[in-house]
C-alpha cells in the first residue's frame, strides 16, 4: 500500500464468548464478573464466523469477560476461524499463566488451534485479581511461540501498575530482554467509569480539551467492529460501555445476520460521524451550539465521551437540531480518506509554499 492510498475500513468480528470473568474490576466496560454466567452459544458463534468470512471480514477477536473461561469450544472456534483464513486474536487477563510452564503449554495449544495474536489486559484494577507475573509469563510464552503480543495497561492518576513498573518487575527483567520487549506492543489506555458524570482522575493533559483535540481522530471501532455479546445482543462497536448505550445495541443473533447489523450501523449518520470525527469533537461541536455543555478535561477514554454524547439531553438536543449541517462535511471527509484516488485528472498543479520559495530563489522574483 502506498502512503497516500485510500484507507480501508477494516471489518472486525468481536465475540464476547462469555461475560464470566475471574476478576471483578471496578468500572468493567462489559459488566463482567465471576457471577455473570451468560455465554454465547457455540453454534451461533460458528455461524457468525462463517458469515464474517463470507462478508470479507478482516479479523476475528475472542474476548469477554474472560474468553479463556469459555472452555474447550474456544479452541474449536479458533480452528474454524483460522481454517477460513481469518486472523485471530484473544484478549485475556492472563489468569491462566500462573507460571512459565503453564503459560507455555497454553500458548502452544492456542497456537496449534490457530491463534495469531494475544492481548493481555492489566493495570491497577486487573492486578487486584491477576498478578503481574502472569502477564510476564504470558508475554514470555507468546514470544516463544512467535505470535504477536500486545499488552494494554490501564491509566489512572496515582496508579501503581504502569509500563515502567511492569518492565521493572524482577521477573520481567530476568526473563525478557530489551530486544524482546521491543517486539511487544505495549499501550497505556485510560481506565474509565461507565457513568459519564463520574469523573476519573487522570494525569494532566490526558483528558480531551480544546488544546489537544487536534490529536484525536475518528473512532476506529464504531461500525467497523461488529461485537456480539454473550447474551446474543449485537453491538455497533467494540463493546466497551455499549451495555449502557441502547443506540449501540443494534441487533440480536436470534433474528439478525452480521450483514444486516452492519448495514444498520452504516445507515445511521451519527455512527458515521463518530467514526469519522470521534465523540470528543462532536461534544466540542455541540458545545459551540450550546455553551452550557461542558466537555473539556473530563474524558480521557473516548468511550466515556461517547456515553456522554448519547446520554446527555442537551447534547442530544443539539445533535437532533443541527446534525444536517454536518452531513456534507462528514461525507466529504469519508470520501477524502477512503475513496479519493489521486490519479492524473484529480491532481492540481498549484505549488506548495516551499516550492514557491525555491522558485523565487531561482528566478529572483
Amino acid at each position, binding site marked *: 500500500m502506498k502512503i497516500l492510498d485510500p484507507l480501508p475500513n477494516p471489518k472486525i468480528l468481536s465475540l464476547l464468548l462469555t461475560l464470566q470473568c475471574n476478576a471483578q474490576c471496578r468500572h468493567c466496560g462489559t459488566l463482567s464478573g465471576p457471577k455473570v454466567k451468560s455465554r454465547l452459544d457455540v453454534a451461533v458463534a460458528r455461524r457468525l464466523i462463517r458469515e464474517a468470512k463470507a462478508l470479507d471480514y478482516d479479523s476475528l477477536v475472542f474476548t469477554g469477560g474472560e474468553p479463556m473461561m469459555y472452555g474447550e469450544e474456544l479452541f474449536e472456534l479458533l480452528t474454524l476461524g483460522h481454517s477460513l483464513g481469518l486472523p485471530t486474536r484473544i484478549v485475556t487477563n492472563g489468569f491462566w499463566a500462573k507460571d512459565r510452564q503453564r503459560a507455555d503449554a497454553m500458548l502452544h495449544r492456542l497456537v496449534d488451534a490457530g491463534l495469531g495474536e494475544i492481548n493481555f489486559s492489566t493495570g491497577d484494577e486487573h492486578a487486584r485479581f491477576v498478578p503481574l507475573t502472569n502477564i510476564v509469563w504470558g508475554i514470555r510464552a507468546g514470544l516463544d511461540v512467535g505470535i504477536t503480543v500486545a499488552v494494554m495497561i490501564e491509566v489512572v492518576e496515582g496508579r501503581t501498575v504502569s509500563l515502567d513498573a511492569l518492565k521493572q518487575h524482577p521477573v520481567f527483567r530476568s526473563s525478557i530482554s530489551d530486544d524482546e520487549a521491543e517486539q511487544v506492543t505495549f499501550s497505556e489506555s485510560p481506565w474509565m467509569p461507565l457513568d459519564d458524570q463520574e469523573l476519573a482522575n487522570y494525569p494532566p493533559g490526558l483528558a480531551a480539551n480544546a488544546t489537544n483535540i487536534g490529536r484525536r481522530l475518528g473512532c476506529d471501532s464504531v461500525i467497523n467492529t461488529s461485537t456480539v455479546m454473550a447474551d446474543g445482543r449485537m453491538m455497533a462497536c467494540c463493546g466497551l460501555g455499549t451495555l449502557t448505550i441502547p443506540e449501540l445495541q443494534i441487533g440480536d443473533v436470534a433474528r439478525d445476520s452480521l450483514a444486516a447489523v452492519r448495514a444498520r450501523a452504516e445507515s445511521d449518520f*451519527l455512527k458515521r460521524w463518530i467514526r469519522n470525527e470521534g465523540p470528543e469533537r462532536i461534544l466540542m461541536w455541540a458545545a459551540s451550539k450550546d455553551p452550557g455543555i461542558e466537555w473539556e478535561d473530563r474524558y480521557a477514554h473516548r468511550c466515556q465521551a461517547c456515553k456522554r454524547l448519547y446520554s446527555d439531553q442537551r447534547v442530544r438536543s443539539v445533535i437532533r437540531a443541527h446534525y444536517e449541517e454536518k452531513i456534507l462535511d462528514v461525507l*466529504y471527509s469519508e470520501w477524502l480518506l477512503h475513496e479519493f484516488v489521486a490519479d492524473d485528472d484529480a491532481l492540481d498543479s498549484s505549488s506548495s509554499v516551499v516550492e514557491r520559495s525555491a522558485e523565487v530563489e531561482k528566478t529572483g522574483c
Partner: protein
Amino acid sequence: MADRLELTGPEFTSRAVSFMNLMRLPAFQKKFAKDPAGTAMRELQLKVPSRAISASNSLLATLLKSRAFNAWAQQFQAEVETRYPDLVSAPTVAQSARASRLAAKRVREEFAQGVARHLPRDLVDKLRVGPAWKGQIAAEDDIAILLLVFVAVVVVVVAPKARDELVSRNTVRLLVNQLELLKTGPNV
C-alpha cells in the same frame, strides 16, 4: 424506540450513496470543489450552511490533491523502503517495531515535515501571525525552516495504533487538524 438517538432514514442512505457515486466523476469533483454547499443543494437536495466544509477537510483536500505533495510522498516512500526495508515490509506496526521503533518514529517525523513543506501559502501566512506561534518559535523569517521547526516543536505526531499503517492519509489528517487548531482555535 422513538427516543433512540439514531440519525437514520432512507434520505440519508440514498444521499450518501449518491454523493460517493457522483464524486467518482472528475467533472463533479471540480464542481463540488468550487461550490460545495451549492452543489450539494442542487444535486443532493441537502440544505447546508454556506461554509459546509470544515477548514480541516479543505486543507486535507488541498494536500491530497496536490501534485507536488503526491510526488513528494511517492519519493518519500521509495526512500523509506530503501533505508528501512524491514520496517516498510512489515504488515503491522507491531511487527515493524521488531525492525525498529526508533526508525518508525523517525519516518513519522520526516513525513510530518514533508506535510508542513507542502502546506498552502495562505495557511502558513495565518500560522505566522497566529497566537500559537508566539513564544514557541524564534525563526519566523525563513518559512521553510520555520515550518520544520514548527513540526518538531508544536505538532505531535501520534504513533498509530498497533494495526494501523505507519504513515497514511490519517497522519495527514492528524497534522492538519492540529495546524487548524493552532491557526483558529477549536474549529467545529
